[in-house]
């Protein structure tokens, strides 16, 4: 079944830890995105990719990095987590304009 997956769903970690949020899709989409979503706020684009070995920063300044070595995989890494990184992180993929979202990772940095 074609889908988009994110792991972990919930993560609580201490300040200074390095973390990687995983995102995988089985739809063969070239376009993939990472958004940050806080309660009552719009989705903010933090990274996107239009294909393998192509990554760009989004509109929201972020201390995270991404990689796109395989079409189906688009992990996001925080080298040193801080409390200000506490948020919901949503991954999406798209073939045209319709974006398909994963269930999200709720990150809490203590």
């Amino acid at each position: 079944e074609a889908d988009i997956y994110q792991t972990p769903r919930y993560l609580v970690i201490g300040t200074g830890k390095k973390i990687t949020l995983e995102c995988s899709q089985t739809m063969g989409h070239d376009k993939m995105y990472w958004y940050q979503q806080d309660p009552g706020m719009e989705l903010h684009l933090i990274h996107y990719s239009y294909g393998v070995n192509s990554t760009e920063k989004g509109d929201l300044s972020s201390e995270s990095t991404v990689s796109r070595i395989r079409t189906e995989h688009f992990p996001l890494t925080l080298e040193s987590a801080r409390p200000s990184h506490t948020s919901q992180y949503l991954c999406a993929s798209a073939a045209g304009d319709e974006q398909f979202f994963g269930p999200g990772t709720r990150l809490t940095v203590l």
Partner: protein
Amino acid sequence: QKEVEQDPGPLSVPEGAIVSLNCTYSNSAFQYFMWYRQYSRKGPELLMYTYSSGNKEDGRFTAQVDKSSKYISLFIRDSQPSDSATYLCASKTSYDKVIFGPGTSLSVIP
């Protein structure tokens, strides 16, 4: 000024009511308009997609775009408790990324 704005609500209606959700946007270059529905602890899913001005109907849902006033609406007829969710409007130009509004929280009371 944010590019896409909507009243965050919450909006509470009785089952069977007609619901009207609204957005305004500021970028006159926007040509594509979308409504996403997001259930609690889930990623958004595309509900309606329209190009330029006009109406589009899909079952109980009608999307309406008025480019002259930069106004986007989503109407839900015969609302059901299962329609309880956050509704995000989104817009894009022909070449740029999707811009999301902050979402309106809707509760349909049985």
